[in-house]
């Protein structure tokens, strides 16, 4: 390395400045490429942030996919360049039982343990969580009262991930509305429904879980579900910071007339 040979303080400072400016610009580019909230990843993908820190952009998952579902994001698109993704409206994920994309990932950015039972022993493609199918009932013709169950029929987890709800058609007063309903506990985000949807721009579409789902947090517990309370074990709230227990106020002498 020629560096360090005969650099005076001024040269050093100008280099330092150049490095700082370059670093900020470079970092800006990387941040730009990282903000990809709406990108769907292959089966077994770790949470987006961890995934991006592991994916080496080799495209082996893309080559492993027998349906040409996956592709590497090009430069200047809405996903970090070179990372694998899918667009279900073009080609959905057909949920291969041997999950070759995940199995062949050399870095573990696609993690086999996320799509298998008993810690990686038996593959279970139904554990795939590419995202969650979300309904736009405004543009769903079944919700209008027309007869359509394309998404329901296309779903590989028929009657588990999508069910049909029978409700009364209030407009006609004499027909039924057969409403498709997505169940997040079973939906793999494969996008076969999105592919099958008959309207011009799909009224059922897959969004990444981070985008599609809300979060209750620690303030509410399903008291009727065994074990749900353990969710808030170890959490603290305002009551924990009080000097005395709230009940002490009721039990203390102040409220009791003598």
């Amino acid at each position, binding site marked *: *390395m*020629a*560096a360090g040979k005969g650099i005076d303080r001024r040269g050093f400072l100008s*280099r330092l400045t*150049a*490095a700082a400016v*370059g*670093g900020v610009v*470079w*970092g800006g*580019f*990387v*941040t730009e*490429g*990282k903000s990809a909230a709406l990108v769907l990843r292959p089966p077994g993908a770790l949470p987006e*942030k*961890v995934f*991006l*820190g*592991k994916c*080496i*952009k*080799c*495209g*082996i998952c*893309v*080559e492993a996919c027998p349906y040409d579902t996956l*592709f*590497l994001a*090009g*430069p*200047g*698109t809405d996903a*970090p*360049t*070179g990372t694998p993704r899918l667009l279900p409206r073009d080609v959905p994920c057909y949920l291969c039982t041997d999950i070759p994309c995940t199995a*062949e*990932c*050399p*870095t*573990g*950015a696609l993690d086999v343990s996320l799509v298998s039972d008993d810690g990686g022993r038996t593959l279970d493609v139904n554990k795939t969580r590419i995202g969650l199918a979300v309904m736009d009932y405004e543009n769903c013709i079944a919700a209008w009262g027309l007869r359509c169950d394309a998404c329901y029929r296309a779903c590989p987890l028929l009657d588990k991930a999508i069910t049909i709800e029978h409700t009364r058609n209030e407009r006609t007063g004499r027909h039924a509305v057969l409403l498709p309903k997505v169940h997040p506990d079973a939906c793999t985000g494969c996008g076969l429904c999105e592919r099958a949807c008959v309207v011009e721009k799909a009224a059922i579409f897959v969004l990444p879980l981070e985008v599609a789902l809300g979060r209750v947090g620690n303030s509410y517990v399903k008291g009727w579900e065994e074990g749900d309370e353990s969710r808030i074990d170890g959490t603290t709230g305002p009551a924990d910071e009080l000097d005395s227990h709230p009940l002490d106020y009721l039990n203390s002498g102040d409220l009791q007339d003598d």
Partner: protein
Amino acid sequence: MTSLRTNRYLIARRLVQTAVMVLLIGGNLWGWTVLRGNLSSSVVLGTVPLADPFAVIQLLAAGGLLATDVLIGAAITLAFYALLGGRVFCSWVCPMNMVTDLANRLGRRFKTGTGSRRVFGRSARYFILGLALVLSAIMGVAAFEAISPIGMLQRGLVFGMGAGWLAVTAVFLFDLLIQRNGFCGHVCPLGAFYALVGRTALVRIDHDHEKCTSCMDCLKVCPENQILELVGQASGSVLDGVCTNCGRCIEVCPDAALSFSHRKHAMSLESGGS
């Protein structure tokens, strides 16, 4: 036939570069199993993993706990280049080499890219290498891989270019119009990484001072000609890691004073840099 002989390494390099990319493209398009993946990480014959060690180091800096496959792949690649010369990657494998060689050839012919303003010094690449690792650690992604024109080119050839041509064209124009050998010889942190790897390489260019007539043809073609300072002065190996073992100097030498050889220490002159 003389041109075949005087370009023997150039032709061999183009064949190797093309063959690697064709095998990778075949792996994607036609299901060939010889080489699957791309230059970032690949699998040979469905068994031996290979990986870009610099990309792996960036991912490790970014905090990724990587699976063993890619770590083994990086170790194999690292060992290979540590023996043959780190920057053998640059001149024998990297497809960007064809782009920059063309730009530099045109630059020599049309006398462009040698303006008085030197944008980057020869050591800039090491700063950029360091910066890549620091940024990877801060941002949590492989920072050079996120913007690398080499990545865009080699991925693009296998999986589709998209807007990647813009980055490749930018490198071409930078080398042609702004700074001769600017990208590969001054900027590229991957080349800088392999230069460090190649400091212990066994295969090196050997200079025979007895035969040399100091015509300096070798310095004209060498993309890193600051390392040929022993030409016309002393016999010995070109020990600097930035030598890409491209062999161009050997084939243009009219006196057969240069050759590939095993590593020898310079007899009377400490060769530059390292």
